[in-house]
């Protein structure tokens, strides 16, 4: 891969591994937007479903779930995780949807934190529950996405355990295969959610967001609709969590059940566009790209290594005021502080781009992207 701009490309683009994360976490953000963006109920404890999916997959693989041995196909454990999340969502929703606004956000946060603290102290899930479980030796091979039971129609995912595929003379590495396979599941889930949103059911959700009292007056039992939407959203959040655990082969309370995980989904939804479904994925892509670009942690390059290579040692050692070198200053501002810039971007979005990336684009184009862009470009009929 050498071209005139390869260094620049490498600096700008995230790695494939990051992109797999964008896909599964993007799905989680979409599921968050499904409930919060469309009904207006801020589900601040949504991470509990994500964590449920992640833990279910790992516990099944470790043979810790009764009736489901370590050999259970990955697709089936995703489904099981989703079903558990549905049950959980209904139980939580039954009491939570009697409240609204800040109170709803707080009770869902409360429930999620109860589970977080519980999982963090429950030594059945892992020998050290604070660090969380990892896939043990009973499931050494990678998790397979595809048609369960048919090897030819399934491919393994995972950083080290993924299948390699030779295709048209090019070889796709395990991570690249994971990217496409996880992408397939995410795409299927996205279409399913989009179908629901565009159905009469989805219209009622919008009615709830715009004016719940009127929706009730028209004759809808909004409580049941909200509960239904919460269950659907929980299911897909759990699938996202399952994909995350399947790819990473481990999970911890901090990166699955903790309330800041919900915070990341919130970030993605706001940046992408609250109540646009697909926007959440773009929002998370944006978020991750900024992080990867500005933090050294990303192996894909980023601004810091690029600047170091570009400026050369002589420039880096140049002293500015007070004994700080340029290199030191760049280090100070860029080394691992991506959250600062993400936070600033987020604040600016809330203040000046309240509709988010996709919402603003749709408002500009006067319709969804797929419908409005061709019309703009080729001037169809209207």
């Amino acid at each position, binding site marked *: 891969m050498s071209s005139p701009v390869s260094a620049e490309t490498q600096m700008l683009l995230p790695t494939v591994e990051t992109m797999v994360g964008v896909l599964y976490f993007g799905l989680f953000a979409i599921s968050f937007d499904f409930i919060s963006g469309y009904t207006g109920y801020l589900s601040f404890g949504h991470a509990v479903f994500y964590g449920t999916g992640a833990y279910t997959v790992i516990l099944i693989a470790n043979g810790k779930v009764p009736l489901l041995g370590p050999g259970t196909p990955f697709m089936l454990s995703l489904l099981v995780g989703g079903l558990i999340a549905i049950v959980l969502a209904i139980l939580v929703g039954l*009491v939570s949807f*009697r409240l609204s*606004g*800040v*109170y709803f956000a707080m009770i869902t*946060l*409360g429930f999620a934190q109860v589970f977080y603290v519980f999982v963090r*102290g429950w030594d059945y899930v892992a020998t050290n529950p604070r660090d969380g479980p990892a896939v043990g030796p009973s499931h050494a091979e990678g998790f397979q996405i595809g048609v369960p039971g048919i090897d030819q129609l399934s491919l393994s995912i995972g950083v080290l355990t993924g299948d390699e595929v030779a295709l048209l003379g090019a070889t796709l590495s395990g991570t690249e295969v994971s990217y496409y396979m996880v992408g397939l599941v995410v795409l299927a889930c996205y279409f399913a959610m989009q179908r629901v949103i565009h159905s009469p059911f989805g219209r009622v959700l919008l009615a709830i967001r715009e004016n719940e009292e009127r929706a009730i007056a028209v004759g809808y039992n909004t409580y049941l609709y909200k509960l239904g939407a919460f269950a659907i959203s929980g299911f897909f959040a759990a699938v996202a969590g399952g994909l995350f655990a399947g790819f990473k082969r481990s999970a911890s309370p901090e990166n699955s059940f903790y309330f800041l995980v919900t915070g990341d989904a919130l970030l993605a939804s706001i940046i992408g566009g609250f109540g646009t479904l697909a926007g959440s994925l773009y929002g998370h892509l944006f978020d991750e790209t900024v992080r990867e670009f500005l933090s050294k942690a990303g192996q894909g390059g980023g601004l810091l290594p690029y600047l170091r290579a570009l400026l050369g040692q002589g420039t880096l050692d140049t002293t500015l005021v007070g004994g700080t070198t340029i290199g030191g200053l760049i280090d100070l501002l860029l080394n691992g502080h991506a959250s*600062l810039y993400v936070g600033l971007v987020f604040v600016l979005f809330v*203040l000046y781009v309240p509709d988010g990336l996709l919402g603003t684009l749709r408002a500009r184009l006067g319709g969804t992207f797929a419908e409005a862009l061709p019309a703009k470009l080729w001037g169809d009929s209207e």
Partner: protein
Amino acid sequence: MILEALAEFLTLGELGGVIVNGLAKSALYVMIASGLTLIFGLMGVLNFAHGSLTMVGAYLGGLLMVVTVTGGTAPLTRLGLFFVAIVVAFALLTALGGAIETTIIRPLYDRPPIYQILLTFGLTLVIEELTRIVLGVYGLQPLSDWQAALATKPQFLREPVALGPVSAGWMSLFQILLGAITVVGIWAFLTRTRYGLYIRAGSEDAEMAAALGIDVRQVFTVVFALGIGLAGAAGTLLMWDPTWGASVPLAAETLLPAFIVVIVGGLGTFRGTVVAALVVGMADAVTTWWFQNVIEFTGLPELVLFLVLVVTLIVRPQGLFGVEEVGGH
């Protein structure tokens, strides 16, 4: 075994110790949460940045102590400096709070309340990361407690004191005293001063208050600033507490209990916050005792706090002293 443990729990010495501990925890909770409740009560803004600002207060107070205290400083001088540190942290953060309100919160009043939550949430990210950068410059460890700040605590605050059969720590008594001062101070401010009257009028009905000639915008700014200032003062107090200490994770650790307290008490009512802090502090102390002596589950106290939140919201959604309509936010 449970019965034996219960019998031991109910002895005067143990129970008394738990009560003193519970009061000390309540005092800390009330100090962390009162700023949050003032801001919410008047403006309907649930300030997610409250924990981060508490953390900033802890570092500011710690910095002042580390700079001024040397090994030979007498205990009473240290206490005096500590009060100076509280006042300075309060003043600096009040100024910061005023700046935040006028520049970025003010444009959002016309939008749905969710945007204020979002904005303050973004603010926490910025504050925490800026703190990390500053700490990085000075080579301080941001994740573990800042030992130098802890070390400025006078020796006698580390020692136990016997009150009859009850053994308690001087630190607990000190915290209870400060908590009582905070509660009385805020109460007096709200009920005995003209400005407190404006604040109470504004939280009842901001439009009507404005119609009566009160500059509500200014009241908003002042309350937000004072609320942030209180967060900073609370942070300074936490710096000396062995279970908290000045560290970056302090932000999330204080934010969640503060939420629990203000919501259990009823969002925006100061009286509710005080009562809820007592409830939550006691629940914390009791479960901590059971965890240390009988039950082995590590997260027990934390788990119970969130259960208190959930059960309160189920049984009495508006909180102990809340008014129903606030739920409309």
